């Protein structure tokens, strides 16, 4: 068995969690979240966590469970709706939230993982997001100048990601829109733990189709159970037989 593979999410997290640590977690809403590792993080009891991710779960699901267990002190996210506990703890000052524009958050994580300490973006110039940050002008191709805001790269003590398949080397393939923040988060963790739905042997994944190379993955686990809760089920009626559509 590969040295990266752990038998379950709890053992994949054993010995590396601590109070006050920074955790990044992949997913957009509940799509592509590392459900089993989040459960194990809750069970670890590690507290005063700083959690970085696009969202913080939603009522009853995902990172909400860690939040509901009083383990989170600070959040960096772009959107935190549909989360009543977070709302009340934010309004009461128990939890700090640093709101990041979604693209800025994605790029800060990408930069952190790529060894880039800071970058400039037009996003947020002239808004609250730019307050207290360095700004400067850069030229456009036509010679006009635009203002940009300096944003810093982000890294984490532990990154938790969810992929569809992995080989035993930790090469990862994501599925559909469950990819989202996972590839960047995989690169930005001091220790990155990936959970997947299936682990295959080397050679079974096409090397040209790998999304995250195994160098970014230190620990790997096959998720024990997937809820894959859908936040907003939207469908259309199936055409009846004979109907031309």
């Amino acid at each position: 068995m590969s040295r990266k593979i752990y038998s379950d999410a709890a053992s994949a997290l054993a010995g590396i969690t601590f109070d006050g640590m920074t955790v990044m977690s992949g997913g957009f809403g509940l799509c592509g979240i590392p459900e089993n590792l989040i459960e194990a993080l809750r069970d670890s009891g590690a507290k005063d966590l700083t959690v970085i991710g696009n969202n913080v779960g939603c009522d009853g699901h995902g990172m909400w469970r860690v939040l509901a267990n009083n383990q989170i002190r600070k959040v960096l996210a772009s959107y935190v709706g549909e989360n009543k506990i977070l709302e009340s703890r934010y309004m009461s000052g128990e939890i700090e939230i640093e709101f990041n524009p979604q693209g800025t958050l994605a790029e800060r994580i990408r930069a952190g993982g790529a060894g880039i300490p800071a970058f400039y973006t037009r996003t947020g110039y002239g808004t609250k997001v730019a307050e207290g940050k360095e700004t400067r002008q850069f030229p456009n191709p036509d010679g006009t100048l635009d203002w940009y805001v300096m944003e810093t790269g982000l890294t984490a003590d532990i990154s938790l990601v969810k992929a569809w398949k992995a080989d035993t080397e930790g090469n990862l393939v994501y599925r559909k829109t469950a990819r989202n923040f996972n590839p960047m988060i995989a690169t930005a963790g001091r220790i990155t733990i990936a959970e997947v739905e299936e682990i295959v042997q080397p050679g079974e994944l096409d090397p040209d189709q790998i999304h995250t190379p195994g160098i970014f993955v230190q620990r790997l686990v096959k998720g024990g159970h997937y809820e894959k809760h859908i936040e907003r089920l939207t469908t259309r009626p199936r055409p009846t037989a004979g109907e031309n559509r």
Partner: protein
Amino acid sequence: MAWTREQMAARAARELRDGYYVNLGIGIPTLVANMIPDGMTVTLQSENGMLGMGPFPYEGDQDADLINAGKQTITELPQTSYFSSADSFGMIRGGHIALSILGGMQVSEKGDLANWMVPGKMIKGMGGAMDLVAGVPRVVVVMDHREKGGDSKFLKECTLPLTGKGVVDLLITDLAVFEIDRRGGGVRLTELADGVTLDMLRACTGADFAVDLQG
């Protein structure tokens, strides 16, 4: 009289052009997806990592791994591609998306947009809105002209915290359509909704505008 949500969306759909890659916000802008003219190819981007968004799935065919930025289950098309959030916002920030249509709380006559927070109320977050307005070359805002209490939402200066400064090119309200010069060249009124007079519009608009009605 005023335009309905559907009429506002239909007016926004007239901003589409063949071959455009477009990002649609939540609310009225979402309705634009159903109003793409026949024979026109428009590719919809979903900022959670997808180009080529298809319709809602048939009942029972939903896939939890396939959602749009509003967290709704959707489908893929033969030409669909998937990518990371960093690539997605690279497309947006890098100016590769031709058009963004989104909702607003307030717009100023300089093209400032506020649509993400109200001080004192719970902040849900800006999501991708700040990146979209900062990076997409043409930004269309679709919103009601007035607050429920009657106050204008199209103002000299926004009073709510901004999403972007000098970012709006076209404002479509239930009463009128305004072209805005985001470099500070002012506002032109180009269309009035059915039954709306210039005097009525002036009485409920905080922003200054020149009149350049077409037709």
